[in-house]
């Protein structure tokens, strides 16, 4: 040994460096593929944005800055929601936080690491959507070369406000949500953000991008009071080769961002370590033992199924995503030219078809993964004196009580209020969906029982992929048969429609039940 040397990295730098290595080491192919996909997406956003801003510059040049401002505001809000989910997981469900806190680091250093993790997770979004949109703005307005170089500090500064806001909102939210639920709440927020993005994307394509963005620019999102509007004004100045006004806009936005992040970094560690950032424990008294009642094993398991699903936000976020997709698809179909809804808009058969599609969509999360949802707790029903048939029936009915009434009601409302069906017909369609649901959900449960995946926390991956594909074919067949018999029944006499659907559902139910019970025997 020839004396000591100073470490090459600060503790925070060393931790971040090792995390960076863990993220990318051995994943070169994956990184390259994702980078190419990101670049491609950024290219699409750039092309669309350039076209939009060029058009706007010709027809409504007064809306240029509000349009950019509203887009940046939407992006900032979207990033904040995602960062909130990421911060939930990084702060409250992090596997390495106890280790970091046990190291000789200050609390602030530990939370700086966590903050960088949150910001880094959102960086690709800002680069793909934010930078390409800003570059499109500059290109459409013929910005000078330095404009594009100036986008680098803009991207760095853009992070500050959503990250700081997410940190502060996160601690406030965790007063309401216990730490052991942080991961599921974070995942649910991510799924809902995805659903919103999907809905927004479809609305843009349905109405036409120019119309939507012009409306947005004219709304509160385009007002000059928001920090993003200052940034937009600065970028507009940069595009007009005015570096001074650009710096002013960037500095104004940056000041708010730095303040938000500094507040987050100052307040969050203190609140976290003093325990303020945790939800107060709510306990119920032992007197509840009085609520014990008697139910058959199948009914008790069905009740358990419903309770477990109703209390899991990731399940409902996934269901909400599916419902958003279905409604957006059908609504945008009506708005577009020559969509299927235009042809069959007032047909009860078409409304029934939509209702059954809703059932399948909800069942895709709740019923297909019903067996897999047992997870590592499956030892309980397997070692209990519970017949396989009772267990499968419990799964089917536990899901049916949640899905069937909701879909029936939504279909009735959609038919009666949204698509102008006479009230009697709307009720008839609602009833038909109600009686058709158990058949569809039984098919989903049975397919899921064929190859359940017990160790997946993701509701979408609780069944083998091959079974998911089979599920779509079987459901398409069932929807086809149920819709056909509903149409036949309606032609003969209106009440015969739901009656024939009930018969088809019963057949599907019995067949699926037998199939699921025999599949259970093959699990080993």
């Amino acid at each position: 040994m020839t004396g000591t040397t100073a470490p090459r990295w600060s503790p925070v730098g060393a931790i971040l460096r090792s995390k960076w290595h863990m993220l990318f080491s051995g994943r070169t192919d994956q990184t390259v593929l994702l980078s190419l996909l990101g670049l491609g997406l950024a290219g699409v956003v750039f092309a669309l944005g350039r076209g939009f801003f060029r058009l706007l510059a010709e027809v409504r040049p007064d809306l240029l800055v509000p349009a950019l401002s509203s887009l940046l505001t939407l992006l900032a809000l979207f990033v904040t929601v995602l960062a909130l989910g990421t911060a939930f997981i990084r702060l409250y469900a992090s596997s390495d936080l106890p280790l970091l806190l046990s190291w000789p680091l200050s609390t602030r250093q530990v939370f700086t690491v966590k903050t960088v993790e949150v910001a880094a997770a959102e960086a690709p979004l800002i680069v793909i959507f934010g930078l390409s949109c800003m570059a499109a703005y500059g290109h459409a307005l013929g910005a000078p070369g330095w404009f594009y170089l100036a986008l680098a500090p803009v991207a760095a500064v853009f992070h500050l406000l959503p990250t700081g806001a997410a940190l502060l909102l996160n601690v406030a939210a965790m007063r309401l949500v216990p730490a052991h639920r942080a991961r599921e709440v974070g995942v649910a927020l991510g799924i809902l953000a995805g659903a919103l993005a999907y809905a927004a994307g479809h609305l843009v394509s349905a109405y036409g991008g120019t119309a939507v963005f012009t409306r947005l620019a004219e709304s509160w999102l385009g007002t000059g009071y928001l920090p993003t509007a200052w940034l937009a004004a600065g970028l507009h100045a940069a595009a007009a080769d005015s570096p001074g006004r650009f710096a002013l806009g960037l500095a104004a936005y940056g000041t708010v961002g730095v303040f938000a992040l500094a507040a987050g970094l100052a307040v969050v560690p203190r609140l976290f370590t003093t325990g303020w950032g945790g939800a107060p424990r709510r306990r119920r008294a032992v007197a509840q033992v009085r609520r014990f009642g008697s139910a058959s094993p199948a009914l008790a398991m069905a009740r358990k199924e419903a309770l477990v699903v109703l209390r899991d936000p990731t399940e409902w976020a996934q269901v909400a995503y599916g419902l958003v997709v279905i409604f957006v698809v059908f609504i945008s179909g009506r708005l577009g030219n020559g969509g299927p809804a235009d042809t069959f808009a007032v047909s009860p058969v078409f409304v029934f078809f939509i209702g059954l599609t809703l059932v399948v969509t909800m069942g895709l999360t709740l019923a297909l993964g019903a067996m897999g949802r047992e997870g590592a707790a499956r030892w309980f029903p397997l070692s209990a004196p519970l017949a396989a048939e009772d267990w499968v029936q419990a799964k089917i009915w536990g899901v049916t009580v949640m899905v069937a009434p909701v879909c029936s009601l939504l279909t009735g409302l959609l038919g009666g209020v949204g698509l102008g069906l006479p009230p009697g017909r709307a009720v008839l369609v609602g009833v038909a969906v109600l009686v058709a649901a158990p058949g569809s959900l039984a098919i989903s449960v049975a397919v899921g029982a064929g190859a359940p995946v017990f160790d997946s926390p993701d509701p979408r991956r609780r069944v083998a992929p091959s079974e998911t594909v089979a599920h779509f074919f079987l459901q398409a067949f069932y929807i086809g048969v149920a819709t056909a018999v509903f149409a036949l029944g309606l032609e003969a006499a209106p009440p015969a429609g739901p009656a024939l659907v009930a018969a088809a559902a019963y057949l599907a139910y019995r067949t699926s039940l037998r199939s699921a019970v025999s599949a259970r025997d093959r699990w080993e």
Partner: protein
Amino acid sequence: MIRLTGLTKRFGDLTAVEGLDLSVTRGELFGFLGPNGAGKTTTIRMMVGLLRPTAGQVHIAGRDMAADPIAAKARLGYVPDEPVLYDKLSGLEFLQLTADVYRVPAERARARAAELLDIFGLSDRAGDPIGAYSRGMRRRLALVAALLHEPEVLVLDEPTSALDPKAARLIKDVLRDFCRRGGTVFMSTHILEIAEAMCSRVGIIDRGRLIAVGTLDELRALAEPGGDGRAASLEDVFLRLTGDEEAVEPEEPSGTGTPP
């Protein structure tokens, strides 16, 4: 009370348990020992109906697990090595589910649940979601659930892991009391002191084969006294029989064990 006959389990080419014959009588607290991967958990999973044996039979309280699984399981209480429960239910809701699935009358279930929650120190947390429980609390709740329907046989996989000394002591007392009242306990453990202190008989499994069964004295007789003249401990016996002791000469066990 528990009878295993020629119990065998194969996973493809791997034989996890082979030709296991064993009887445990009423009132016995039987310890099932073995090194990691010896086949303890696989045996237990076949006993409680989680796995189907490749060959052989399991009888619980006179009921064949393959032919009449509902009746056999109704007489059984089981706590797995890692008792993962339904995190979204409260402790009380899980007990209610257990009572309904095991068809315990409501009045009886209410009284048993209150009594057992009190014994295991879970009364004030019974309304909390299981997701907020510590590992030790989950294990205690699983044991409450296993005892709720007053089973004739308790099968426990590593019952004292993840427990603090106080809870471990409590569980030992509860199990002894259960046996005194005529119940039968079959438990696996790798903590030899627990087996030595609690079990009336012990079985040792290694590489899927039961290599020794007997009382502690019978097992000690299998191992020569230590070099210092002291009587062999269960640890000595275990290491000797499972061949993990460097000084041990290869030797077939004889007499007390089921022939391999």
